[in-house]
């Protein structure tokens, strides 16, 4: 009896919680399907009177944000690749070679400490560096900064995945006469590939969402990323909330799809590899 009551109560609580969480997203989608005339209605409605995909067309084509989508994807992929390569070069010695504990702890702690750094504090020096290097408004500058900022995450994620590969397998290859590089390529790399892909997906999602650096380091559509474009739709004079909502929906869809694919590894990514799903 009490069990049933508890279950009933739980169901109610969960339904309310779900409704609260889902509703803002629902309204976002609804707004993205409204015509401009509907936006001028005295009272906003919960359902578009004349649903249209014009806002999406407007955002992607009239406003040219397709270029920004491409930029975001390119920047995300490149930065992820760069971060993972560097992270590998750091994680491999840490996890598979007998370095002193102090070295390991130092590297890991240093990486973790970057999580506390407000990006705004380093934006100006980065801007100065980028400007001096002649890389202002160039995508490579954004890629480089993203790789750097995601390095701590990459290190911790890879460390976790590499630690699960037993040292014995590698040693067996070494005693069989392989060089360390061959052992790496034939044993460690294939075994860690699922981990690499999982890490890549999580890191890409974070790069996708990044706003501040893309905003400061770029000026035109050649190098701007999608979040910068979305923010640009919040204007002074225009009533373009439908376009703004469409931009928001597009910004959400990609990381959502990725996270659903890699859902077993989301928790690992968010907690820097501390909590891992088997």
């Amino acid at each position, binding site marked *: 009896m009490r069990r049933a009551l*508890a*279950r009933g109560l*739980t169901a109610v*609580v*969960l339904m309310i919680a779900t409704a609260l*969480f889902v509703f*803002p997203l629902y*309204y*976002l989608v609804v707004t993205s399907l409204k015509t401009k005339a509907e*936006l001028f209605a*005295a*009272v906003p409605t919960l359902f578009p009177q004349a649903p249209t995909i014009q806002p999406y067309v407007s955002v992607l084509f009239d406003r040219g944000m397709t270029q920004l989508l491409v930029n975001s994807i390119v920047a995300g992929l490149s930065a992820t690749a760069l971060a993972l390569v560097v992270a590998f070069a*750091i994680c*491999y*010695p*840490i996890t598979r*070679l*007998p*370095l*002193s*504990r102090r*070295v*390991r702890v130092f*590297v890991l702690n*240093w990486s973790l*400490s*970057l*999580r*506390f*750094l*407000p*990006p*705004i*504090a380093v934006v*100006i*020096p980065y801007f*100065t560096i980028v400007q001096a290097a002649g890389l202002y408004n160039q995508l490579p500058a954004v890629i480089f900064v993203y790789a750097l900022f995601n*390095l701590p995450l990459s290190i911790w994620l890879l460390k*976790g995945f590499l630690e699960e590969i*037993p040292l014995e397998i590698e040693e067996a290859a070494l005693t069989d006469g392989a060089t360390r590089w061959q052992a790496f390529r034939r044993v460690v790399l294939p075994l860690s590939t699922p981990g690499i892909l999982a890490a890549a997906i999580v890191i890409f999602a974070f790069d996708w*969402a990044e*706003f*501040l650096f893309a905003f400061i380091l770029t000026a035109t559509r050649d190098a701007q990323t999608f979040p910068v474009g*979305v*923010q640009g739709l*919040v204007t002074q004079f225009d009533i373009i909330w439908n376009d703004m909502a469409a931009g928001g929906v597009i*910004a*959400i869809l990609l*990381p*959502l799809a990725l*996270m659903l694919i890699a*859902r077993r590894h*989301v*928790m690992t990514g*968010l*907690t*820097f590899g*501390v*909590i*891992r799903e088997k």
Partner: protein
Amino acid sequence: MSLQAAVPDGRRPSLAARARTNWGARSRQERLGLRLLLPVFGTVVVVATVPFILAFVRSLTANDGRFVGLENFQRALGNAQLVESVKQTAIYAGIVLPVEILLGLGLALLVHRTVRSPAIRAAIYVAAMIPIVIPQIAVGVVFRLVYAPDYGILNALLGDTGHDQILWLSSPPLAMLSVASVDVWQWTPFVYLIMFAGLQTVPTESVEAAQVDGASSWAQFRHIELSYLRPLLLLVLFFRIADVLRVFDHVYVLTGGGPGATTEFLSLYLYRVAFKFSDLGQASALAVVVMAGMTIFYSVITRFLPAERR
């Protein structure tokens, strides 16, 4: 799901232990490790530290390049608006952190204890991930559409229109709460997921034993589950504090720091000094102060974290 954080693996010999067994091989392997690690890690540290140095140098110079010593720091620290900004950030953290943790923990307990179906649990798990992966900017846009007067849906749902509408984004106490609610919306699922993972590791025998002994739900929680959750709670606090102190994107879109300076948190204040006032000297001084503060804060906090043992 399993927890690999604070549990040392006692079964396999550690790297260090192995190293000790073979002196010659240890030196060679260790040297190889250092040869691989130091160039790459060293470069990374240098590259990452250069901006700090630049910010430090810039904080000691005026706009035209002259060395002015601590003048920028005086201006930065003497600014009453900085104090206000820090205060508002602290208030924001004070609202957001307890709510997220209690709510997330509560929901985790609720689902853990009363939902048995694995299908529903899995569905909740996936659903909980959704707010977390949404870009901050998009979240700001989403909630702008909810809270804005005249075209926001909340007031329309409440039947509140015309002159006496509730001003979610312009009335000082409400603006803070509105901005905080966005954070709660986005990150409570994160807390939930971690707490839920933690609850999975509690051995069922202990729980059953307690229930057989007649312990109430609350006692069961306090004495058994809490001890397993404690390291995770600290972890969650660690990550949430780090993020809450850095918050920028969604506040920028939602209130831009207003009304007045109510939601002008630390990052937004820095942005204003750097880009609205174009006072790069003061902004750099602020950046140095903030980074120093964060370093101290981080060292203090990591003492409480479960140590990584190998």
